[in-house]
C-alpha cells in the first residue's frame, strides 16, 4: 500500500533531520561554545584529577565535612532515584527518626528544632548537590569543632557557595555541598 511506502520514506528523511542533524548540531555548538557545561560541569582538583561534578551531589559522612541530603542510592551517579515513600508509609517515619537520632549524637550543640526538613528527607534524584542555607548553618558548630576552622570563616564559605534564586525569583537559594567542602578541605591543610 502507498501509505506504507510513504511512511518508510518519511521515516528515513525525518530520522536524518531530527535525529542525525538536530542532535549533532546541538552537540557541535554546545561543545564549541560551552565545553565545560556540555561535558557535565566536572570539577578537577589541583592535580587535575576529577573529584566530581558541580551539579551532582556526593556522599559525605565524615564529621569534618558538611553533609548533604538523604540519598537512598548513596549518591551513586550511574543511576538516580528515591525510595518513593508515600507520606503515609511507616518506613518514611522510621528513616526520618533514625536521621534525627544520628543528628543528636553528631551535633550535640544544635537542637533538633533548628534542623531544616531538607536534611532528613530524601531528594527526588538521590543526587541533590545542594542543601538549604539553614541546613548548612546548622552544621557549622560541628564542622568548626572537628576542623578547627572558625565559625565565621565557615559562614563566609557558605555564603560564597550559596546560589540564589534564578533571576531573583525562580527556585530557592541553595548551598553547593561539594564546592563548600572543597573549601573546607583546603582550609584544613
Amino acid at each position, binding site marked *: 500500500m502507498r501509505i506504507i511506502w510513504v511512511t518508510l520514506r518519511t521515516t528515513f528523511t525525518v530520522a536524518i533531520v531530527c535525529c542525525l542533524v538536530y542532535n549533532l548540531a546541538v552537540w557541535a*555548538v554546545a561543545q564549541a561554545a560551552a565545553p565545560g557545561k556540555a561535558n557535565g560541569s566536572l570539577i578537577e582538583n589541583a592535580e587535575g584529577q576529577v573529584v566530581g561534578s558541580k*551539579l551532582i551531589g556526593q556522599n559525605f559522612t565524615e564529621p569534618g565535612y558538611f553533609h548533604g541530603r538523604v540519598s537512598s542510592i548513596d549518591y551513586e*551517579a550511574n543511576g538516580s532515584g528515591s525510595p518513593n515513600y*508515600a507520606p*503515609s508509609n511507616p518506613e518514611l517515619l522510621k528513616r526520618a527518626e533514625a536521621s534525627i537520632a544520628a543528628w543528636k549524637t553528631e551535633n550535640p550543640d544544635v537542637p533538633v528544632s533548628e534542623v*531544616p526538613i531538607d536534611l532528613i528527607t530524601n*531528594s*527526588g534524584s538521590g543526587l541533590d548537590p545542594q542543601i538549604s542555607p539553614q541546613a548548612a548553618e546548622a552544621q557549622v558548630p560541628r564542622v568548626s569543632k572537628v576542623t578547627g576552622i572558625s565559625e565565621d570563616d565557615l559562614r563566609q564559605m557558605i555564603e560564597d557557595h550559596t546560589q540564589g534564586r534564578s533571576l531573583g525569583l525562580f527556585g530557592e537559594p541553595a548551598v553547593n555541598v561539594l564546592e563548600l567542602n572543597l573549601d573546607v578541605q583546603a582550609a584544613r591543610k
Partner: protein
Amino acid sequence: MTTISIIAILVTLLIVVALAKPVGLYLAAAFDYGSSSRLNRVFGPVERLIYRISGVREENQSWKTYAASLIGSNAIMIFIIYLVLRFQGMLPLNPAGIANMEPSLAFNTAVSFMTNTDLQHYSGESGVSYLSQISVLVFALFVSPATGLALVMAFIRGLTGKAAGNFFVDLIRALTRVLLPVAFVSALLFVFMGVPQTFEPAAAATTLEGAQQTIARGPIASFLAIKELGNNGGGFLGVNSAHPFENPNGLSNLLQILLMMLVTTSLPFAYGKMVGSLKQGRILFVSMLVMLIVMTGISLTAESAGNPVLNALGVQHSQGSMEGKEVRLGEAQSAFYSVITTAAETGAVNNMHDTLTPIGGLVPLANMMLNTVFGGMGVGFVNVLMYAIIAVFLSGLMVGRTPEFLGRKIEGKEMKLIAVTLLVQPFLILVPTAIALATHPETISNPGFHGLTQALYEFTSSAANNGSGFEGLGDANTFWNISTGIVMFLGRYISMVTLLAVAGSLAIKKPIPESSGTFRTDTAMFGAVFVGIVLIVGALTFFPAVVLGPIAEQLTL
C-alpha cells in the same frame, strides 16, 4: 511558601498568557494550505525537498485516508522503534555496553514514546544506549507531537467545512515550522544553563572522601528540549527533570514550564483564527486557565503545609514537604511543575509524584482524568472541543433545540461517536486498575490507601498519554509492560479515529445561519457551562476511585 515563590508562579503564568495568542496566530498561518504567505517562502524549499525524498504528494486526503495514514504510519514507526530497542546491544554508540531490551519492555517503550506518553519502565542510565536515545527515542519525541498537531489541524478544518488536508504534509510542517526550530534554540539555552550534551561515556570521579563515583551523562540537552516542547515527558535519565543534569536551576525549570505550555495554550487562539472568530478560542482559553489556577492553588496549599507525620518530629518545616524534592527547586516550583506537567499531559517530573502529599498527588491525577486543562500537544485541544460539543448538546437538550456548533447541527451520529470516546477513557483506567490490584498486589510498594492510588495513577497516566508515574510501583515486569502498553495505544488512537470521524461528518454538513435562538459558544456563559460539564463528567466517573485513594489517605494521616 514565600511571597517570592508566589510572585514567581504569577510571573510564569503571565508569560504563558502573553505567548499564547501570538503563537496561536503563527500556528494558524503555518498550517494554512491556501496562503501564499511569507512562511511558505521561508520553509517551502526545504519542505518540498523533504516531500520529494519522502514521496509525499501535496494533495488533500479523504477523512478516512487521513486517519489511515495517521494510524498506519504510527504503527509502522512503533515497529521500527521496537526493533532498534531489541537489538541495541549489538548496535554502535553504546559506550556503557547496555544490553538488548527484553520484548515486553521494548513493546512498552516503543508504544509509550510513539503515543506521546513516555511512560518509562526502564531507567535511562542503564536501560538504553546512546544510539537508542538519539535515534529512535528522539525520533518519537518529534513525530508523536507532530502527529498530535496534525490531528488538531485536521479536526479544526473539519469543523469549518474544509477538506482534511494531507497527514504527511501536516506532519512535516509541524516539524519544520514549529518543533525543530524551537527545540534547537531551547536545547542550546539548556546547555548554557548547565545541561550536558556529550557523547563521552560516564565520567569517573574520586570523591573527597575517597570513594569512586561514576557520573552518567550524555546528549541530554537535545533530548530535553523536545521532551518538553512536544509534551512528551520521557526523561534521558531515570528521575527525569528532578536530576540536576536534566534541570540544573530555577531558570531551566522556568524554561521547561514555558515549553510545556507553549503550543497547547496557543491552540485555542489558532482555533479562533481558523474558524474566523478569536472570541471562540478566547473563552475556551480563559475557562482552562481558570481551572489551571484553581489546581495550582490547591496543590501549593497542600505541599506547603507539608507532611504532618514528619512535621510532628519537631524539625524546622517552613520549606513544606521536601521528601522526593530538590532543594534548588523547592516546594513551590515542584508543586507548580507537577500541575503543569499533568495539565499539558507531558509527564516530565521535577519531583517524585509518589511522595507528594495525598492532596498534592490528587491534583495531577485529576488533571489527567479530566484531560481538558489544556491537555497534550494537539490531542488535548481536540478533547476540549469534544467537551465543547457535549456542552452545546446538553444545553440544546435543556431548551429543546437542535444543538449547533459553529453553525453545524450536532446530531445522533456525532453524539454516538463522542459517547464512545467518552466511555473508553474510564474503561481503560478503572478496569485495568481493578485487575492489577486483584492479580498483582505484590507490585504495589506503599501500604494502605496509597497503594490503590499507585495503580490508579499508572493507568490514568497511560490512558491520558501523560507518562508520569507513582514510581515506587514495581512496574518493570511483563504484566505492567503489556497492560499499560495496550492502554496507552487504545487511549491514544481510539479517540483519534472517532473524533476524526466526527470532524469528517461535520465537514459535509451545510452550515445554518446564526439566529437569535442560537446558543452562542463565545460567551462567558458558555465558558461556565463548559467547565461545569467537564467537572460533572469527571466527578461522576472517577469520584469513587479518588475517595478510596488519595482522599482516604489524607484523612488517615
